C-alpha cells in the first residue's frame, strides 16, 4: 500500500517538475496560465496523498492510545460517571424505584432541616470527623517519626501498625465489641480492678453519648497505620542534609521537628488531612457494626449520614430523598476538596 503511494507521489512529482520547466519556457501568457493551473492541481494531489498518509498514521496512533484506555474507561463511564449524573437528577425527584418519576424541585432539600433524624446524623458525622481527623493525624505522624529512625525490628513494628488497616471490619469490630463489653469485657474489668472505677460508673462504650468516642477511638486504631505509611513516604523525601545543617546550628530534637520536619511535610499533612476527612464523612460500617447490635439498626445517638442514605433508599424506597441527603454529603466533601486545591496552589505560589 505504502509503496504504491510512494510510486504515485514520485510520478506526480516528476510531472510537477516537467510542468515547471514548461512554464519557464512558455511565452504565451494564456497557455502559461493554463500550465500553472495544471501544476497547482498536481501539487494539490501530492499534498493530498501525503496528508492523507500522515492523517492515517496519526489516526492509527490515536486508535492505539484509545485501545489502551477503552477497557477501563468504558467500565468507568458506565458504572461510575452515569450513576453520578443520575444521582444529581434523582435528588430533585420523588421516586420509589418502580412507579413514574415526579420532579419536585427543591422539595426534598426543604424538608431536610426539619428532619430530626437527618440532623442527628449530620451532627454525629461532623463530630466523628472532627474527632477522628486530628487524632489520627497526630498518631500517624508520631508513629512515622519513631519508625523513620534507626530502630531494631523496624519492619516488625511497621507491619504490626498496619495490621488493623488490612484486617476485615466485621472481624475486628467483633473483637472490639467483646473487649469493650460493658459488663463482661476485659477493658472494663481492668478499669474495675486496676483503676478501681466503681461498678456503677463503668463506661457503657456502645450506647448513649459515649458511642461516638468509641467510634473515634476505633477509627484511630484502625487507620493510623495507613496514614503512617504515607507519612513515612513523606519523611523519606526530606533531604538528610537539612538535618545535618540543623545539627551544626545546634538545633535540638524539638527544633529540628518544628523547623525542618513539620514545614517539609506540609503538603503530606494536607493530603493526609483531606483524605482522612473525606474517608471519615463516608463512615457507615464501623457505626453499624459497633453500635448497631444484632439487627444493625442505629439510634439517633449513633446514626451517620450514609446510614440514613441507605435507610431511605433501601428500606423506605424514598430514592429522591435519599439522594438529597447524598448531595449534602457530596457538598461537604466538595468543600474540603476545594479548600485543598486552593491551599496547594498557595503552597506552589
Amino acid at each position, binding site marked *: 500500500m505504502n509503496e504504491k503511494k510512494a510510486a504515485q507521489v514520485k510520478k506526480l512529482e516528476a510531472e510537477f517538475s516537467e510542468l515547471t520547466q514548461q512554464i519557464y519556457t512558455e511565452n504565451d501568457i494564456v497557455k502559461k496560465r493554463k500550465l500553472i493551473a495544471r501544476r497547482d492541481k498536481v501539487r494539490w494531489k501530492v499534498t493530498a496523498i501525503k496528508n492523507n498518509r500522515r492523517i492515517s498514521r496519526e489516526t492509527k496512533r490515536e486508535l492505539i*492510545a484509545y485501545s489502551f*484506555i477503552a477497557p477501563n474507561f468504558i467500565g*468507568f463511564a458506565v458504572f*461510575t460517571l452515569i450513576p453520578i449524573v443520575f444521582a444529581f437528577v434523582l435528588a430533585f425527584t420523588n421516586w420509589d424505584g418502580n412507579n413514574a418519576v415526579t420532579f419536585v424541585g427543591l422539595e426534598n432539600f426543604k424538608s431536610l432541616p426539619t428532619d430530626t433524624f437527618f440532623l442527628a446524623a449530620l451532627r454525629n458525622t461532623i463530630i466523628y470527623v472532627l474527632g477522628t481527623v486530628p487524632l489520627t493525624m497526630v498518631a500517624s505522624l508520631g508513629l512515622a517519626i519513631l519508625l523513620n529512625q534507626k530502630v531494631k525490628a523496624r519492619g516488625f513494628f511497621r507491619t*504490626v501498625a*498496619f495490621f488493623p488497616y488490612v484486617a476485615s*471490619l466485621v472481624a475486628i469490630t467483633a473483637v472490639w465489641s467483646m473487649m469493650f463489653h460493658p459488663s463482661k469485657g476485659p477493658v472494663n474489668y481492668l478499669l474495675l480492678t486496676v483503676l478501681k472505677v466503681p461498678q456503677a460508673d463503668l463506661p457503657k462504650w456502645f450506647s448513649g453519648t459515649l458511642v461516638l468516642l468509641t467510634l473515634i477511638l476505633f477509627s484511630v486504631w484502625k487507620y493510623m497505620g495507613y496514614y503512617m505509611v504515607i507519612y513515612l513516604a513523606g519523611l523519606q523525601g526530606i533531604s538528610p542534609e537539612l538535618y545535618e545543617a540543623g545539627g551544626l546550628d545546634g538545633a535540638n530534637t524539638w527544633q529540628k521537628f518544628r523547623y525542618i520536619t513539620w514545614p517539609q511535610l506540609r503538603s503530606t499533612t*494536607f493530603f493526609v488531612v483531606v483524605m482522612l476527612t473525606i474517608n471519615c464523612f463516608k463512615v457507615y460500617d464501623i457505626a453499624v457494626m459497633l453500635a448497631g447490635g444484632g439487627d444493625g439498626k442505629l439510634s439517633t445517638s449513633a446514626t451517620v449520614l450514609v446510614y440514613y442514605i441507605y435507610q431511605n433508599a433501601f428500606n423506605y424506597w424514598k430514592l429522591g430523598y435519599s439522594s438529597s441527603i447524598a448531595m449534602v454529603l457530596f457538598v461537604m466533601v*466538595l468543600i474540603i476538596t476545594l479548600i485543598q486545591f486552593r491551599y496547594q496552589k498557595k503552597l506552589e505560589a
Partner: protein
Amino acid sequence: MTNEMTGKKYKSKSKNALIGKIVVYLILFIIAAIMIVPFLWMLSASIKSNREVFLMDPFVWIPEVPKWNNYINIWTKIPLLKFVENTVFLTIVVTCLQLLTSSFAAYSFAKLEFKNKNLMFLAYIATIAMPWQVYMVPQFIMMRGMGLNDKLLAMICLQAFSAFGVFMMKQFYEGIPNDLCEAARIDGMNEYTIYAKIMLPLSKPALSTLTIFTFVSTWNDYLGPLIYLKTESKKTIQLGLRMFIGQYSSEYGLIMAGSVVSLIPVILVFLVLQKYFVEGVASSGLKG
C-alpha cells in the same frame, strides 16, 4: 583538661541518647501491644468455650482444653465454604481486572498523545474525591435495570474500574523516563510490547500497592455486597459472618473462629507484598 571535659560531655550525651532510645522503644512496644492485643485476644477466644471467653480470674491465653472444635463447627453452622468461595472468586477477578485495565489506561495517559486526553483524565480525577456512597443508590437502580441485582457480576462491575487505580498507576509511570519508551520505539517495538516488556516489569512497587489496596477493599467490602447480594449462596464472607453474629451473638468462640478464618487471606497477601508497599506509596504520588 580539655580532653577530659569533652570526654565528660560525650559521656552525658551518650547517656541522654540511651535514655532517648529506651523511651522510643517503650513507646513502640506500647503501641505495638495496643495494635496486636485485639488480634491475640481473637486467637485466644477462638479456641475457648463461651464461658471461658470472658473468664477474667484467672485469665489464660490458652485454655487447658483448647476447643479446636470451634474451627470445625463454624464451617457447618453457616455455609462458610460457599462464602469463602464467593469472596475468593470476587477478589481475584476484581484485582486482576483492576490491575490490568488501570495499568493499561495509565500507560496511555502517561506516555501517549491523543485527542481529549486531558478531558478524559479530568473525568477520572473529578470522581476520585466523590464518595461512592453519593451515587450508590442510582448505581443500584441502574444495575437492577440491567438485570444484575443479586449477581456476583454486579460486584465485579462495581469494583473493577476505579479512578483511583488509573490515577495511581499514571503517577508512577510518569516517573519512568520517556527516553526509555523512545529508545524502545526506535528499536521497532510497538506500544503493546513496550507496555508489556518495559513498563510492567518496572512497575512492581505500584502494582503491589494497588494489589494490596484492591484485594483488601474487595475482600473486606461490606456495604456493596449488602446492597447487591440477597441470596445466601451468593453472599461474601463479610456478609455471612455479620449475619452469623446477628443470629448467634453469644456464640463468642465461633464468632472469633470465623473472624480468624476471614483474616487469613488478606494477611497473607499483605505479608507477601508489603516490602514494596512503602516504596509504592512513595513513588505513586499518593502522598500528594
